[in-house]
């Protein structure tokens, strides 16, 4: 998978094991270093021995502590990398949960928390930079809360973009795992699809420039832009659907009331009224938060609207043919 984080997590695990082994090797030395080694010596010599033993004990203890810290860090990276790649085991998630209140994608946590946690873990996303250099996820995501939340929104909702040079991108709504009962397999799947989404976003974002591709894409769907775009799309979709329904209804009523001429006038009036009402409704619906968050529904609505218009147009044409 192109979005897979290519850091060699196996090397991290192996490295952590080596460091822990070195740490435990030092334990036997630590056990032998004691004040008794200065016994039997005159004060001047025993002082030197005591000082050397104390210094060696401190060096060994410090090395043990630092080796463990380093091993723990490598383990965390290995776990975080597996999780980010959608390959996390339940044990990995359990480990992440132990690391702190915001440290893991665990039950009851918001998606934002989980994303932030992944950023805190120093997750690297090497595939997403022009030079292929690893970039910490928090930097990759701009490091700002706003951007993080925006990213969560993108992940959590459908992404629909319209911009010159960028094709409309329709991806089915991704249900991020937000319930308190986390299904790890689902979470892994979500993360994988998230990675796939990023890859797709990057591909579509290429015309925006070579650097900061993902961030550029995020800026394309910034809050204001998303709202305006969704509103416009909703209005257009609603308008088209209204036009179709109104024209059809108006033509039928007009036909009954005023014959063929009435049908023509009815279709026109009905279409106009329908488009106005549909547009307004579409706008309202588009601005309704849950709907706005599900942009793909709107996308489907547009498609549906187009089909309805096409069908209504066809019906009107048929009516015309029958009438004339």
């Amino acid at each position, binding site marked *: 998978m192109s979005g897979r984080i290519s850091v060699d997590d196996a090397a*991290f695990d192996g*490295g952590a094991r080596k460091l822990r*082994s*070195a740490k435990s090797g030092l334990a036997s030395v630590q056990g*032998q270093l004691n004040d008794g080694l200065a016994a039997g010596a005159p004060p001047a*010599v025993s002082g030197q021995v005591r000082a050397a*033993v104390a210094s060696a004990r401190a060096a060994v203890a410090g090395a043990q502590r630092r*080796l463990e810290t*380093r091993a723990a860090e*490598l383990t965390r990276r290995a776990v975080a990398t597996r999780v980010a790649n959608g390959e996390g085991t339940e044990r990995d998630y359990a480990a992440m949960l132990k690391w702190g209140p915001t440290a893991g994608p665990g039950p009851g946590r918001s998606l934002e928390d989980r994303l932030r946690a992944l950023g805190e873990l120093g997750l690297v996303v090497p595939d997403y930079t022009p030079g292929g250099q690893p970039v910490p996820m928090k930097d990759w995501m701009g490091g700002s809360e706003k951007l993080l939340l925006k990213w969560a929104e993108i992940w959590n909702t459908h992404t629909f973009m319209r911009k010159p040079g960028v094709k409309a991108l329709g991806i089915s709504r991704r249900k991020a795992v937000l319930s308190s009962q986390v299904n790890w397999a689902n979470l892994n799947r979500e993360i994988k699809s998230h990675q796939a989404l990023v890859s797709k976003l990057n591909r579509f974002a290429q015309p925006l420039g070579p650097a900061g591709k993902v961030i550029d894409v995020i800026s394309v769907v910034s809050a204001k832009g998303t709202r305006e775009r969704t509103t416009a799309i909703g209005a257009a979709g609603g308008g088209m659907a209204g036009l179709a329904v109104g024209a059809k209804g108006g033509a039928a009523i007009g036909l009954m009331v005023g014959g063929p001429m009435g049908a023509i006038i009815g279709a026109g009036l009905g279409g106009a009224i329908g488009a106005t009402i549909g547009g307004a409704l579409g706008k309202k619906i588009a601005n309704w938060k849950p709907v706005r968050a599900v942009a793909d529904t709107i996308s489907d609505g547009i498609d549906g609207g187009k089909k309805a218009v096409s069908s209504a147009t066809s019906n009107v044409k048929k009516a015309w043919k029958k009438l004339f």
Partner: protein
Amino acid sequence: MSFHAQAMAMCGAKPPGNPDLMIENAGRILSIVAELESQASAVAGAKVAGAGAAVSAANAGTASDAAKLRSAASALQSAGSSLRSAAAKLKTEQDAWERCVKTRAGQLEHEFRRAQAAGS
């Protein structure tokens, strides 16, 4: 007062310390030094494979720890050597003192016997 006690008073205080225990401890210290050096090599060898900042930082830290352990082993080696040479010196001093006491006690006894023989 016995001849031995008189001789001890004449030879001064016995140099303090237990050279045998010191030598035993020096041997233990030097064996710890060997193990510490071996562990320092193990730590130095615990390098993490791979690339990236995290790996570089881990390897740099590990190398630094290995160097600190080697330095500690060196200080310990020096202390062990000092202990051993101090033990050897102390043993020499204590042997000399023992010889002094023995010689003095012998002389005192000899003089006592001679005086006894002259008196009788």
